[in-house]
């Protein structure tokens, strides 16, 4: 018996909305979440905008509100999105499946925080000559640290908080730090189901690239180059998206609605210095079922970076078959969610596949070495 894997739950906390229909409606209206950062002055950076999640109340999404003080924003977003995904799937852990039969695979981004949160530590640890002084750090700087800092900088914490909040006890792993690793998390859940290890997996990612330190890190990685060249480039965003994957037969047996079936996937590693186009084309040549461009809807990886967009276009052009009827570029309106971006692309694609009863292809191309794409079909 084939073990088709279905997406039965979608949970998203994104700059464009907190449900797939809401995000889709705003995309269709051409709304964007791009705006100057609310938490710092971006004047020093070429990119003046970011895409923030507004009106986020983390206490609404967890059974363990006391834990919120241990969490950074990445973790709070992850816990909320995971909760929404399980609610969307109407999945009761401990009732529909035992906790150990649910896997959890997530992706997290570069662990960062607003520099202000450790500003006291830094100022207390500087010598009169303006150098970092480990002795001052030990004597005074440590007193300025939140004792719970480690919980906010360890990259595995968002997923661990999800497991605690939702009582998920099954197989797990956490990948970092880009969109491609988010795609790997989705695939890890798919493979765990296919090998019969679990009937259900919660997969997704979270990231926050809207604070000052994240902007500095992106600046140092050259991510703002298009902006420096006078173009409207990619916009850093924040958010979390989780998806409930289930063995389709078992999902149907419990009466679950299936948004879409994971019908194919492709992965390729972009070797440093090599063309992104070739890596994207290599992805599209793998396992996506019928010719990739035959998808009715294409969730493009385009995020405003002309080089990425060009690579995607050329890769598509190298594939046989007719073009997609619709091309959607969610990152151009919701910002780039980095480690959460793959789940965002796939989640939106799954919802559209279910709504329009069509075949959707979601691309996870861009920064980092790992490139991926998923094919989604109406069940």
């Amino acid at each position, binding site marked *: 018996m084939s073990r088709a894997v279905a997406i039965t739950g979608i949970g998203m906390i994104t700059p464009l909305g907190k449900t797939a229909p809401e995000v889709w409606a705003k995309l269709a209206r051409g709304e964007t979440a791009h705006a100057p950062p609310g938490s710092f002055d971006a004047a020093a950076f070429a990119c003046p905008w970011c895409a923030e999640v507004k009106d986020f109340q983390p206490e609404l999404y967890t059974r363990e509100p006391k834990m919120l003080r241990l969490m950074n924003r990445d973790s709070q977003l992850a816990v909320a999105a995971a909760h929404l995904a399980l609610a969307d799937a109407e999945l009761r852990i401990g009732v529909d499946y035992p906790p150990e039969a649910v896997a959890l695979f997530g992706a997290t981004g570069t662990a960062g925080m607003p520099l202000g949160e450790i500003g006291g530590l830094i100022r207390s640890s500087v010598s009169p000559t303006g150098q970092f002084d480990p002795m001052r750090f030990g004597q005074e700087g440590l007193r300025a640290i939140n004792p719970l800092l480690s919980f906010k*900088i360890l990259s595995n914490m968002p997923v661990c908080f999800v497991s605690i909040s939702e009582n*998920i*006890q099954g197989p797990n792993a956490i990948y*970092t730090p880009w969109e491609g690793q988010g795609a790997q998390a989705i695939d890890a859940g798919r493979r765990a189901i296919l090998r019969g290890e679990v009937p259900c997996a919660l997969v997704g990612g979270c990231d926050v690239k809207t604070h000052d330190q994240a902007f500095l890190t992106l600046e140092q990685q050259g991510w703002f180059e298009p902006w420096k060249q006078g173009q409207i480039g990619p916009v850093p965003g924040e958010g979390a998206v989780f998806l409930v994957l289930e063995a389709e037969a078992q999902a149907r047996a419990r009466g679950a609605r299936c948004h879409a079936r994971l019908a194919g996937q492709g992965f390729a590693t972009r070797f440093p210095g090599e063309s992104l186009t070739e890596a994207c084309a290599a992805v599209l040549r793998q396992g996506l079922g019928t010719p990739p461009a035959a998808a009715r809807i294409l969730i493009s990886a385009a995020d405003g970076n002309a080089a990425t967009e060009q690579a995607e276009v050329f890769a598509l052009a190298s594939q046989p078959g007719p073009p997609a009827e619709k091309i959607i570029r969610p990152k151009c309106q919701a910002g780039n969610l980095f480690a959460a971006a793959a789940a965002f692309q796939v989640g939106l694609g799954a919802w559209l596949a279910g709504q329009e009863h069509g075949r959707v292809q979601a691309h996870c191309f861009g920064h980092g070495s790992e490139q991926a794409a998923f094919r989604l079909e109406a069940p």
Partner: protein
Amino acid sequence: MRRRIVVTGLGLCTPVGSGPGDFWPNLLAGRSGIGPITRFAAGALPVRIGGEVKGLDLPAFPEAEPGDDRKVRLGLAAARLALGDAGLAEANLEPGLLSVGVCLEFFSLERVAPVAGAADMIQALARQWQAGAGGPPLQIPLDFLTQQLGKHYRFRRGWSTNCSACAAGAQAVGEAFQRLREGEAELALAGAADSTLNPLGLGGFSLLRILAQENDRPQAACRPFDATRQGTVLSEGAAFLVLETEARARQRGARIYAEITGYATSLDAYRVSDPEPSGRGAVRCMSQALADAGLAPEAIDSINAHGTGTPKNDLTETQAIKQVFGEHARRIPVYAIKSMTGHMIAASGAVEAAAACLSLYTGRIPPTINLQHPDPLCDLDYVAGQAREFAGRTVLSNSFGFGGQNASLVFQRLADEPLDGLANGPGGTAWAGTGSRPLLSSE
């Protein structure tokens, strides 16, 4: 039929030794790698001890720029040693998989300090960077080591960076094992690297009160399963394993240390700071790994414990072992090499996987040192003080991590491998340091 996956190369950089000639003999001799912190002025920190890797001689990686990111240096060195040990230093690795475990990102306080007096530090840093002031970036992404290894050795597919904290090393090895077993490739380089021995790492962990603060007796500070244990000791290190299908390894006449036969993970879903007291996550993890290997509990001959030396972890792990193995638990030697290496966080699971392979390959198991005051609640055979001969065929290696992530690996000696495989290895003296097998005394 499942493909069989074997370990054909080991590379380590640890506080008890980095080369093949010193890591394993030092471990068997019970030598601690813990000492006063020397890499920075730690005198004002509450914890001033750790396990530093000494004499790290990084082979030339001209394209790598690890800067001050110590874990990257350690990882590059360990990976090179592993591939050399497997006889693959010059091999075409393009079809292979690369699976890397890491934990904490490098964050340069030194870079921020000069602008600490600025009204807006981030603006000052950004302008400094844009002006080409040079220096390392504020943060180095966690996949930097993966990128460097992939690029240098030209792995062409499946680069994976796992950040599952203390379970990351075991998960990196376990995932590579699964993917090879499922036919995705024939070969993988899998392992992990980490260093928390910097002001922010050591300071941050010390605030969590999980570290032993016995600065005046560093070598005795980490005491897994001892009644007087006070906490773990942070250290740094890296280990990489070369995994291959048995068919490929046989075809090229490779030395085989051990076979990996089982892997499982679980979550405690309890607290981010403490293990779940009943040990349910650890129980499930070990049980699933045994099931994956197709082994009954009675078939396990030794356990390479997570054994951190924290009061809660050691008790929970002991109770979990008893639940899984029943009466057989008292017959299994359970050893904790963190008593000598300290806790290398992400790297620990990979280093301990390598130690498990070496125990099967050399027919010896290392001791748990500093165990002098038996804890009535930790009442298994912890191989206290002295290494032992080991004629068993199976090892279970546990990594139970911060945040509640657990991973267990099962290693087995191949049926046709001689007990003391060392004599057949290249160089003859590679891992055991001696051809004979006397019982070794700990220091």
